[in-house]
């Protein structure tokens, strides 16, 4: 999956919605609580924007294990969340990969190099096995994946993570820039500046470079 504009837009929207949702209960919360709320919004938004993949289901499942996340997840996901069967779906289609995992484990414990599981020629070897285990723990839902799915889901997950970082970075840059300009011109209402910001954000997705260019071209405000 290429991180598409539509994914980034869907992610941004979903995240902002989520932040607003949690803002209601977190205006007076501790710094840590507010940070966790933002992170939760970002992760749920990423999963929702991507749709149904093994890792997105795994991510929602692991997020729902924590008590403080449940009401947020319930609100955002609604009916989807109430049906646990959907969340555990990734564990349904595994008969084949279970055999593969079992074989790989036997390989590890017996150290018989001539046992080869299907699709495992890339992953033969103890170091590779070890690191595969690490990767399985890093990718949500990875523990129950066969080698091929793991590679596929990893690629997808990493792409989405990149986009998540990119969008959050852009949001922060834009918000910081807006604050900075307001400080320089604190008393006056500045509809022009507001409009400028909205226009800038609006064309976010036309070019990635557009944002950097516009920020550098912005006229310096004089008091």
């Amino acid at each position, binding site marked *: 999956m290429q991180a598409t504009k539509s994914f980034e837009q869907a992610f941004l929207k979903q995240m902002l919605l989520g932040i607003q949702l949690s803002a209601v209960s977190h205006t007076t919360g501790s710094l840590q609580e507010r940070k966790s709320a*933002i992170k939760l919004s*970002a992760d749920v938004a990423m999963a929702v924007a991507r749709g149904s993949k093994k890792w997105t289901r795994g991510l929602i499942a692991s997020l729902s294990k924590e008590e403080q996340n449940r009401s947020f997840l319930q609100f955002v996901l609604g009916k989807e969340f109430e049906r646990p069967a959907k969340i555990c779906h990734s564990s349904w289609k595994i008969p084949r990969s279970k055999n593969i995992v079992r074989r790989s484990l036997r390989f590890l414990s017996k150290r018989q190099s001539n046992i080869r599981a*299907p*699709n495992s020629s890339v992953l033969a070897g103890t170091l590779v096995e070890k690191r595969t285990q690490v990767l399985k723990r890093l990718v949500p839902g990875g523990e129950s994946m066969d080698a091929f799915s793991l590679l596929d889901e990893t690629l997808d997950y*990493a792409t989405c*993570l*990149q986009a998540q970082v990119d969008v*959050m970075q852009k949001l922060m840059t834009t918000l910081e820039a807006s604050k900075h300009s*307001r400080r320089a011109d604190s008393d006056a209402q500045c509809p022009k500046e507001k409009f400028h910001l909205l226009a800038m954000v609006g064309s976010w997705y036309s070019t990635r470079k557009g944002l950097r260019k516009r920020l550098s071209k912005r006229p310096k405000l004089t008091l």
Partner: protein
Amino acid sequence: MSSRRSRVSEEEINRLVSKLQSLLPETRQRGAGRASAAKLLKETCNYIRSLNRDVDDLSDRLSAIIATMDSSSAEAEMVRSLLRS
């Protein structure tokens, strides 16, 4: 397991591996040559961990900015307009 099936899977695995390599910042810079499976896995894990750290850090900074936003500010208006679009 028929050999025909595993041959197709090998191609697909190779395709995935090269896509993954082009995604990773380090192997992308180095360009040529195939990294070993072990190296690829290590760099993939490192990359995912670093992206997670970035998200964590950005969540920190965003929560600081958003906390100081009031509903009449330019930022809040921007957020509202983003949601409307």
